[in-house]
């Protein structure tokens, strides 16, 4: 239990100490400009709109997936989980390829004489948020649909319910339960949106608080204002988490999606409508990625050497970050399973309160007398990425560790199996799967992250940062190729870790 408390204390010191440094450096609300207050209003507005759109659009998609069976359905449902580990900057490249000035959508608009749409500005931010959160929402709502016992649908069929009756008696009550949590989950994600706002927003009407922190830090060198904005961001996260305590936010990954044995869905026009909805959703999600892949894949081999060295740097950082995350996750989860008290679990969830940019600002304040920004860039990025992945890892590991303790704790104790032997012979083999999964998530998230590193951007860019620099210098062909490389590496890291956890099974 000692190790669990030590890790929890270290984590608490890291997060609260960093936030403390931010609060100490903050200059009071008076330093905030009109620009900053607009950023706050925009952050809330875009998060609310993104959440509403994602949840609303997800309902017909989830219903279509719930009541139809077709070839490739399982693959599609699995793909809906992919955006979680898809690097944000890669998705932005894809969205630009489809919705940008020379993209498919604007070509069509021009072709029929309609005005073009721009992907830059608030509409681009919303579009990208819906791109990321529509799949998450569909998965969560689909779980809700599949949690309705198949017997009830059979009962409805035996009572000759029409689609309207089913909607009224079965579907709407379920949606009333599920939708608030889905909305809030998306709202929370969008509240700390940085990369999307950095790449697609940025003007007076499309700057989030996270982006404002970056701008104050990087362009104005105004640490007091950056810190004050940091406090505003913390207040937002804490407020949203308090709200989340009242509404159960479901976890959106890792659960199986099996056939339920419900009767087939209604025929007629609804059949065509479902097919259309599924095709549209799949197209919206796949077209950007396929487009980037098509233009980037042939050029991957011709990428300049500095992109490859950035890739290598990113891999090392991602693996280090993942190793830190799984070690901390394992220690914390085992402590929680042995009844170490709620504060240990709370410490593991603490990163949810802090946003990466706030932590980055705080660590810079704490370390600025000890190291140059260039020196701290990579270690700080690794540490923050490891911390940010912790809550996701713990969600997978704590239940597994509790089951391990409940099932085999007494047997191990009665055989005097303890210490390293217990770790080697019992804990690691039994927890390999959730550990591999948590490590895969952590590695992929760290691989694709374009956040803290931008604060310190020096001469040692990570691959996402390198990609962003290529985009900014309009080297779009190299950017597309680097996107393909980054996407492949992120998915490969996830696969390797996850696969490693299943080797034994």
């Amino acid at each position, binding site marked *: 239990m000692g190790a669990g408390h030590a890790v929890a204390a270290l984590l608490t010191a890291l997060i609260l100490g960093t936030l403390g440094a931010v609060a100490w450096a903050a200059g009071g609300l008076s330093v905030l400009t009109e620009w900053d207050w607009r950023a706050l209003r925009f952050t809330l507005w875009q998060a609310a709109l993104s959440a509403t759109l994602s949840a609303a659009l997800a309902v017909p998609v989830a219903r279509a997936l719930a009541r139809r069976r077709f070839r490739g359905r399982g693959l599609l449902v699995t793909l809906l989980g992919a955006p979680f580990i898809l690097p944000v900057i890669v998705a932005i490249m894809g969205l630009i390829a489809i919705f940008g000035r020379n993209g498919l959508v604007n070509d069509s608009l021009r072709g029929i004489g309609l005005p073009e749409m721009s992907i830059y500005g608030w509409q681009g931010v919303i579009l990208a948020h819906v791109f990321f959160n529509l799949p998450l929402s569909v998965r969560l709502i689909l779980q809700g649909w599949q949690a309705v016992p198949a017997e009830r649908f059979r009962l409805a069929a035996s009572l000759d319910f029409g689609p309207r009756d089913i909607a009224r008696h079965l579907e709407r009550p379920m949606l009333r339960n599920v939708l608030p949590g889905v909305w809030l989950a998306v709202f929370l994600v969008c509240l700390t949106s940085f990369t999307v706002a950095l790449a697609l927003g940025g003007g007076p009407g499309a700057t989030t608080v996270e982006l404002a922190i970056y701008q104050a830090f990087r362009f104005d060198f105004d640490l007091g204002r950056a810190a004050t904005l940091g406090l505003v961001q913390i207040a937002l996260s804490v407020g949203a988490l308090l709200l989340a305590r009242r509404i159960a936010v479901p976890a959106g990954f890792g659960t199986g999606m099996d056939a339920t044995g419900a009767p087939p869905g209604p025929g007629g026009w609804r059949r065509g409508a479902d097919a259309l909805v599924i095709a549209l959703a799949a197209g919206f999600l796949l077209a950007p990625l396929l487009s980037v892949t098509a233009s980037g894949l042939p050029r991957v081999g011709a990428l300049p050497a500095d992109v490859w060295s950035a890739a290598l740097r990113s891999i090392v950082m991602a693996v280090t970050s993942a190793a830190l995350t799984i070690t901390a996750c394992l220690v914390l989860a085992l402590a929680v399973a042995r009844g170490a008290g709620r504060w240990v679990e709370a410490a593991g969830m603490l990163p949810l309160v802090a946003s990466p940019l706030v932590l980055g600002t705080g660590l810079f304040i704490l370390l600025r007398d000890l190291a140059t920004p260039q020196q701290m860039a990579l270690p700080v990025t690794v540490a923050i990425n490891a911390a940010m992945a912790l809550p996701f890892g713990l969600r997978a590991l704590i239940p597994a560790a509790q089951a391990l303790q409940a*099932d085999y704790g007494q047997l191990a104790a009665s055989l005097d*199996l303890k210490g390293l032997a217990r770790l080697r012979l019992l804990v690691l083999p039994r927890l390999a799967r959730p550990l591999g999964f948590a490590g895969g998530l952590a590695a992929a998230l760290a691989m694709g992250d374009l956040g803290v590193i931008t604060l310190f951007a020096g001469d040692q860019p990570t691959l996402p940062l390198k990609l962003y620099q290529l985009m900014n210098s309009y080297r779009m062909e190299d950017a597309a190729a680097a996107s393909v490389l980054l996407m492949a590496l992120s998915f490969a890291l996830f696969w390797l870790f996850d696969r490693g956890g299943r080797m034994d099974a």
Partner: protein
Amino acid sequence: MLEFRDILLRQGDFALAADFTLPQGRYAVIGASGSGKSTLLSLVGGFLAPDRGRLAWDGQDITGMVPGRRPVSMLFQHHNLFPHLTVAQNVGMGLRPDLRLDWAQKDRVAQVLAQVGLSGTAARRPGALSGGQQSRVALARVLLRARPLLLLDEPFAALGPALKSEMLDLLSAIVADTGATVLMVTHDPADARAFAPQTVLVEDGRAHAPRPTGPLLDDPPPGLRAYLG
């Protein structure tokens, strides 16, 4: 000899008291559901600590001893084997929990596996064995550990009647071999009669001193009568 010296254990509204001595032998532990049979075994196994009183084995106080150091082997209702380890590893843990076994110890493992009729299964995982074979693996480990006190919390409850009596026969042979004292929780009077000359009745928050099994079951006290039906 196992001594319960003025033991009292509380868990919320539930309490269990015990104050008696068990000389070497075989005992059934019987009582209604929720009466505290498993609690009594957990107390002896070291998974629960009494609020009052001492527990002693052959005169030595074992109240504060951790489960793995007690002179005890225990078989639980479920989860008696690690499913990710092989049969030989599961049994070998009875010799050294860290499984760093030398050749002589590996020979011992093979010997006890042969003794319970499981030669040739050493490299398999428990999931590849039948329920009866899994019970034999657990018994092989008991045999290897050779602790003087054996606690059984209905480990054979999920087996069919024929298999169960087969396991009890094997158990009798092992006990005859090692001379261990056995406490066996059961809800089946036939098991108690077949295996244990003496029975500890757990009723109304108290584990009672052992009485001869036959007479106790022929003329049970009212609470036990209601339970046995």
